[in-house]
């Protein structure tokens, strides 16, 4: 047992700042244990969301020393013995009080993502799927909706103005999950990701993957394949020609996919032609074209970098923990 300095952002929608606490820490504890001790002994009204305290519900998302994390999954033993631990609310969402933020953005975006479309020809109990086919979607269904990927994504992190057009990594993996679901009846998941979710804004810095407590390979396994599906269709010469010579009501979706629609695939993927869906996507230009190389793939900047993974969303010259005095948590309303 020893005493440690904690700095916690206290405040509400009007005003706030970092408050210093000296608090007892015991062996084997996590940050959330210490926050609970603060509540019980020094700051009874310190607001902090939590539920399971086991890394399974995704409620206790905060930023610890500037890095988005789950408080229940951050062991005290990972800090230098005398270092101050600074806890601030998720920066991309409006603060409600102390460490609690308004995460309704994520729920709004979830509502705007079309739900699973059950195959009309199958009654419950008749679904047959192979494990290898469900596994890809199962990875994305591990998501605990902690929204760490949503808060870290630089498309919205300091750019509230992008929020209306951008659904964020959590919803990209939802789109990918449904797109890869062996029995989902819709075929326009990739088009939706481009048209409505703004997947084109993502330039694959992989910050979302980096912070994911479930280690979902958000970028590699969801975002890039979804971008490729969009790209394939966008640059498909038949679709291009069709756009030139057919009236809109004559257009028929030609679903072409680099991964899922090949006849040698699982055998379950038989997308039905869907009229009128795709060319609409092209009417509204996606935020940015996917810049595919000659091989039809996206050029990955990481292959050119001197380090594994992508450039840090925080800037490559920033290392963690960030000293408390350098943390610039600014109240969103007071910017």
């Amino acid at each position, binding site marked *: 047992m020893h005493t440690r300095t904690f700095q916690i952002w206290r405040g509400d929608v009007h005003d706030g700042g970092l408050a210093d606490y000296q608090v007892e820490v015991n062996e084997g504890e996590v940050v959330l244990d210490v926050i609970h001790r603060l509540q019980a002994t020094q700051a009874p009204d310190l607001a902090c969301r939590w*539920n399971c305290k086991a890394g399974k519900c995704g409620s206790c998302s905060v930023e610890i020393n500037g890095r988005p994390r789950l408080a229940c*999954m951050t062991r005290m033993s990972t800090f230098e013995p005398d270092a101050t631990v600074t806890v601030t609310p998720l920066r991309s969402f409006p603060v409600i009080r102390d460490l609690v933020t308004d995460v309704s953005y994520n729920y709004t975006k979830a*509502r705007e993502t079309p739900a699973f479309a059950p195959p009309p020809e199958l009654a419950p109990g008749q679904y047959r799927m192979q494990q290898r086919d469900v596994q890809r979607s*199962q990875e994305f269904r591990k998501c605990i909706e902690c929204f760490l990927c949503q808060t870290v994504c630089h498309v919205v992190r300091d750019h509230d103005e992008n929020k209306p057009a951008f659904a964020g990594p959590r919803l990209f993996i939802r789109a990918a999950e449904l797109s890869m679901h062996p029995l989902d009846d819709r075929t326009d998941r990739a088009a939706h990701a481009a048209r409505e979710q703004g997947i084109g804004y993502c330039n694959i810095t992989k910050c979302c993957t980096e912070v994911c407590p479930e280690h979902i390979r958000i970028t590699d396994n969801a975002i890039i394949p979804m971008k490729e599906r969009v790209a394939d269709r966008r640059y498909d010469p038949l679709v291009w020609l069709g756009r030139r010579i057919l009236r809109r009501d004559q257009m028929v979706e030609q679903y072409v996919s680099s991964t899922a629609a090949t006849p040698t695939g699982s055998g379950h993927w038989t997308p039905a032609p869907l009229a009128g869906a795709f060319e609409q996507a092209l009417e509204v230009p996606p935020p940015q074209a996917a810049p595919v190389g000659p091989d039809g793939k996206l050029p990955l900047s990481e292959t050119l970098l001197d380090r594994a993974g992508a450039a840090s969303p925080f800037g490559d010259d920033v290392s963690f923990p960030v000293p408390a005095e350098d943390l610039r948590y600014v109240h969103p309303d007071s910017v």
Partner: protein
Amino acid sequence: MENVQRHGYDVVVIGAGGAGLRAAIEARLAGARTAIISKSLFGKAHTVMAEGGAAAAMGNVNSNDSWQVHFRDTMRGGKFLNNVRMAQLHAQEAPERIWELESYGALFDRTPDGKISQRNFGGHEYPRLAHVGDRTGLELIRTLQQKIVSLQQEDFAGSGSYDSRLRVFDETTITDLLVTDGAVAGAFGYVRQTGELIRFEAPAVVLATGGIGRSYRVTSNSWEYTGDGHALALRAGGQLINMEFLQFHPTGMVWPPSVRGILVTESVRGDGGVLTNSEGRRFMFDYIPEVFRDYYAQAPEEADRWYTDPDNHGRPPELLPRDEVARAINAEVKAGRGTPAGGVYLDVSSRLSAEVIRRKLPSMYHQFRELADVDITKQPMEVGPTCHYVMGGVEVDAETTATASVFGLFAAGEVTGGMHGANRLGGNSLSDLLVFGKRAGEHAAAHAAAAARSPVADADLATAAETALVPLERSGGENPYALQQELQSVMGNLVGIIRRGSELAEALEKLAELRERVAKVGAPGGRAYNPAWHLALDLRHMLVVSECTARAALQREESRGGHTREDFPAMNPAWRQVNLVCSVPGDHAEVRVTRQPVPAMPPDLAALFQPDELAKYLTPEELKDPTDAH
């Protein structure tokens, strides 16, 4: 009086875990305007913690399985105290409820022929648990959450508003039910984010608030499990049954402290994990009760062959029902053969390859790796009993889930009593909440369509508002966190896994003292998102529910399932005929416990058991004619 938000609905579902969401889906499908009230954010409910799976006799892995076998296992697990009709409906309807989830988008693990895979679990005769790795609860809650979103999308297409027929009120807590002349009129509470007061008016209310584990120090339960629905039902004039039966999960982590109380799923044992004491002995062979002797292996060699050839070998005793395992661990620790932190070792690392462990138990592996720096592929875990589930709860009708004493009040899931009898089998809670969640939604919607709306009495509103606000206005009141810790230690030390008459009596005295102090609890700070205030209000619920448990435990002078009396160590067939019923006769009255006969088993169901098995549970008079009603 100050401003109170006012909302009118046909059906109000209190609780947004599996049972609540399933009920809301059904109510909305039946045409009722439905509100879901969630104490946390939408999709964060404690259901996410369920790891093992959902039990349903689909027969995908072993075609010998059927609802009859599932029913039989459930009754055995519940020590024949179950509400027979609930156990039957549950076993019959669980497969349909699971299949239905697939049409909502759930992705269960598969068998080689593409069906839903099913795994072995303690107390289940055949592989029966539909699962997704070890995160089945998350899959379930996410699936139901996404089904609700999909219904809201339909409503949006029809009306232009997502919330027009099904609305989620997240981070909203109900503090009182509004009841007028014995009929539900609505519910009263507050919005956590702002501290605003809120009232719902509805002819039908479904309680789906889950359990009571937060009254214990070592618990797997999240902060929400403060017995709200139990207490709301009691105060509204409802009855709780079987409150003495609490399930202590045999294998919760006891070390390190960051993971204390967190469950190690039973499938660790189903997949080959073994329990050993500090001397290295695989001690479960010493604790096989007579009633299970025929089904379990007598020696490690036989047990080890069961994993590959289950038809010709007895099961490993690590797969005994939970209460037996919990009791065995407790006995080992008390005999001085425990680990330094007061548990025993659960080892899967010496039994399966690291690669198999990571594939079969992925979230377990990650959880302990990251939370506690424990690598379960390399070292054993330190485990011990942790408060996990309450079998007791609101007494409801099996068919409709309606309470008998409050018109328009329904309940489903862990908040109800009877379904699981004296002990719940693993995997039966997820199927329970689907089966009875659906029934609750269906019947609540039908009730709302037929019943007249009761007016809310102004005086009730004023009282509810005053009760909710008083801790904020009391300066220098008792610290709610300290009170909770005291309550937890009273319950943990005196009403824990092994109970004594003298300790239970002492617990009741201490609870009476605590009741005085909880009445003087104060919460410093403002209205907006003030956790001290929230806890202060929860304490009121926790206290009355704890009192129910202690009183019922003191009365039941036998040991059965989730109730173990050191002074009455044996099961007594005469007590199998008795349900203990708790009620609160007035606002500030003590809990009253009365006795009620357990309905007899119909002949067709009794015929599913061998006479010599029935002889272990029933009295000689009952055995002469087991179908004879009381």
